[in-house]
């Protein structure tokens, strides 16, 4: 997986969307990713890591 490709795809996802639409898309993406991860412990570690930066 090429990090520049992934990063670009995440930015591209929001092109042309207003803030509200972007938030909706992000929430959908998080749920889809949570399902792909499929491991509650791993997911909780990711959630904790994300929260640390807030």
């Amino acid at each position, binding site marked *: 997986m090429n990090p520049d490709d992934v990063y670009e795809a995440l930015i591209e996802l929001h092109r042309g969307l207003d803030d509200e639409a972007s*938030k*909706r898309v992000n*929430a*959908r993406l*998080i*749920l*889809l990713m949570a*399902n792909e991860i499929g491991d509650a412990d791993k997911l909780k570690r990711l959630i904790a890591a994300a929260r640390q930066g807030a």
Partner: protein
Amino acid sequence: MGRYRSPVFPYRSLGASRARRRVVVVGAGPVGLTLAIDLRLRGIDVTLVDEDDTVSSGSRAICWAKRSLEIFDRLGVARPIVERGIIWNKGRVFHRDREVYAFDLLPEAGHSLPAFVNLQQYHVEEVLVGRAESVGVELLWKHRVNGLDLRDQPALTVETPDGTRILEADWILACDGARSQVRRLMGLPFSGQVFEDRFLIADVHMQADFPTERWFWFDPPFHPGGSALLHRQADDIWRIDLQLGRDADPVEERKPERVIPRLQAMLGADKRFELDWVSVYTFQCRRLDRFRHGRVLFLGDAAHQVSPFGARGGNSGIQDADNLAWKLALVLDGKAPERLLDSYDAERGPAADENILHSARATDFITPKTEMSRLFREAALSLAGEHAFARRFINSGRLSSACVQRGSPLNTSDVDAFADRMCPGSAAADAPSGNGWLLPKLGGRDFTLLRFGTEVDGPLASVEATSDEAIQRYDAKPGTAYLIRPDQHVAARWRQPTRAAVEAALARARGHAA
């Protein structure tokens, strides 16, 4: 309002100004009545006191879950409740103007009772009162508890039409509801979470041909921004719950001129209906720290309270009664030590926590408190049509099923390999058995050994199961045996039990030190 004509039960005087009873149940709601009947069927003299002389009014518990129906069946009252009520197994969830998914709560055949029966609480209470009378429960109507003395011999002060009476009781079983007088008199904290959203609860009389399913809407066109729930009950009464939000005025919202347009929007402008009952509620999830306080035990809403999503209020109370009755009967008969009663708290405390967790989560999902929780809910709902996994995030109420009492001190841990489904602490699953059903053969006055094949030389009555459904549900092989408690829960199981193993498990399950 109200088409139902409540019966009036005969007042009987307690007689002397001071009386003594062995077991007094406070509160003749579904829980108190179930408990009194169960104790009476176990040969215990029971007195039931209630401040009123009739059944409850209005829309209260309506959805009786399979486990409650099984308990009612054990007590001889399932038949009138099922016959009078509305059987349902399926539900649908809608988002805005489309159906998101449908579910089936009892997807396998071979059960005598359905996932749910809807029946107004007052009908259920009327059936239970009839049964309580016929089995010899002493029913003291218009006896209102207003004092409690626990210094020495427990004694209740009761107000009656003939004046104040002192009712001494060896055991006081408080089934007096969310506003429990016994709990208040003992000064026990009842703490937890209060939800700010108000809900309109309406019982509506109408002729309608909606299927007998649980229908739940998020943000429907007829009630934008809120949720709605529709249940069919007996007598062409339909129960409707509408979320009104935090700022709704509970007095204004109860007025017919406010309620009728809301219902017309939902049911159609030309639909003819009559209001049978209207109220506006907020919901709470609270519990007592401990359900046993010496000679006083708390059951049902007096012990724990939940929001209605998931039908976990009335049903958990019925399970409390099921759990306590056999234990108290064994203790009173001198067949078990008093500490067996501590297992009531050890088993029903975690059950209450589970019910509170599910009901609080459902309430949070239905009433999102932050912009972000609303966004995630929208995301789950918008994905759910296309992606099956997202349906599992959608929480319109996780519907009541029997709690598995995994950590119970009465359980004997598995020593043999088994599938998890009927692990110790589970309510025994029903299955076909001969010309009838398995569950009615289990439970009763004493423990039962449920065996598959081999006869076990042991101290107990045994029941043999042979149907394919029973073999599959109990993961049975020839020689497998289950020790079943009087409340139809699994205490232990073996592939090839020995008499010594059965006796040890039996002693543990009766509260004797293991």
